[in-house]
């Protein structure tokens, strides 16, 4: 059967991997190419690269880093951050990305997801949504989690999937960086609404958090950054633990 995926996320700024805590107070960790090599050797199932500052500063993407990684690492690579147009898709796909994740770009231009899905196929288009509770409701946030769009997150995600997003990466701002576990309430609500694969992001602190995550139906992958980068949790150890507890893993 299909395995659940463990995905380290590399947030890149100025050619270095950084990891924010609640999206603020960014700390430098390491060289992205070196880290990609290490995670590939450790059995990561996929790698995600985000240009975290791109949507804010409108910078061009880190295509040379991506090219270097894609030339020697042969697992799926997803790229996000500052994807606003089909030209942005084209640029990162030519540098070896397999999937492209859109966030603020889809909020600004509702035509982006359907156009990208038509040109590259749904399997290539990942909707990344930053979600936070506001007055007891899930809201979508834009610009790296800094701006409340006021939109209902569940409606927004369902709409993007109907428009052609082939996967959803769901990041809970409430649990991000806190390391108290994934936002299962939010994940369950989204899993009940869409039938495409869901990648859970935000809140992983220990291996038990992943086990609890995969016991919830409809969640296909767990994504984390800091706990992997800081070696608080090793991927081989995590995957062995999950496999021992009955979760299908690629070992």
């Amino acid at each position, binding site marked *: *059967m*299909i*395995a659940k*995926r463990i995905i380290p996320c590399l947030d890149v700024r100025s050619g270095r991997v950084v990891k924010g805590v609640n999206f603020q107070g960014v700390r430098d960790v390491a060289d992205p190419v070196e880290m990609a090599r290490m995670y*590939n050797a450790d059995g990561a*199932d996929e790698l995600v690269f985000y240009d975290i500052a791109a949507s804010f500063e409108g910078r061009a993407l880190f295509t040379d880093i991506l090219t270097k990684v*894609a*030339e*020697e690492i*042969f*697992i*799926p690579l997803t790229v996000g951050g500052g994807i606003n147009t089909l030209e942005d898709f084209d640029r990162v*796909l*030519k*540098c*070896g990305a*397999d999937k492209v994740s859109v966030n603020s770009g889809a909020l600004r231009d509702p035509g982006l997801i359907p156009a990208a899905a038509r040109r590259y*196929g*749904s*399997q290539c288009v990942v909707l990344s949504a930053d979600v936070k509770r506001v007055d007891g409701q899930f809201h979508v946030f834009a610009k790296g989690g800094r701006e409340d769009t006021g939109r209902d997150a569940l409606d927004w995600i369902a709409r993007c999937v109907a428009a052609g997003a*082939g*996967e959803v990466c769901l990041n809970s701002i409430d649990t991000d960086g806190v390391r108290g576990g994934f936002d299962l309430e939010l994940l369950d609500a989204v899993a009940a609404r869409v*039938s*495409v*694969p869901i990648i859970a992001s935000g809140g992983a602190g220990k291996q038990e958090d992943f086990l609890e995550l995969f016991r919830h*139906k*409809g969640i*296909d*992958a767990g994504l984390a950054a800091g706990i992997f980068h800081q070696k608080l949790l090793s991927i081989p150890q995590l995957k062995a633990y999950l496999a021992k507890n009955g979760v299908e893993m*690629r070992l």
Partner: protein
Amino acid sequence: MIAVIDYGVGNLFSLRSSLRHLGLEAAVTADPEVIRAADRVILPGVGAFGDAMEQLERRGLVPVVQAEAARKPLLGICLGMQLLFEESYEYGRHAGLGLVPGRVCPLAPDLADPALKVPQIGWNALELLRPQDPLFRYLRQGEYVYYVHSYYGKDCAASTLAVSEYSIPVTGVVREGWVYGAQFHPEKSGDTGLRILQAFAEL
């Protein structure tokens, strides 16, 4: 030299990089002369079946691929594998290259577990039905490979070398003579995928 057929369908970056990584000489080409001169051929592809056949036809490559398939090892990958079959039912009915008996059908209505997601996206274990096949020279039973697909090869039991379980056995690898097809992406399947490409280069 391996000719990787470039007919405007899908992203060839990873395939080209993985062949280079293995030290294999490859030409990404739509030139019939280069394809004829190659000692093996890879037919990649991502997207819709009908569009892909149309792109091959437009470049005059259908008879070239059919003729070369009888003379040298050929590997179809993902949609390239599906094109090897006789016909597909993706958005209407389309004739394929007819190199492998069978047809390409949607995965969703055939799944025994309707809660499973389509497309199948992710790593699935490859069950080798004929582990002694030379393509599997460097593989162990049950290694994981990376799939992204909504359609699959059907009515091809006699040609099937490997399957992956997705509530039903999904056709993973087929072979008819020197013509091989892999539904998954060897160029995205980590070290396992590289060992499949290496074995193909040694056929």
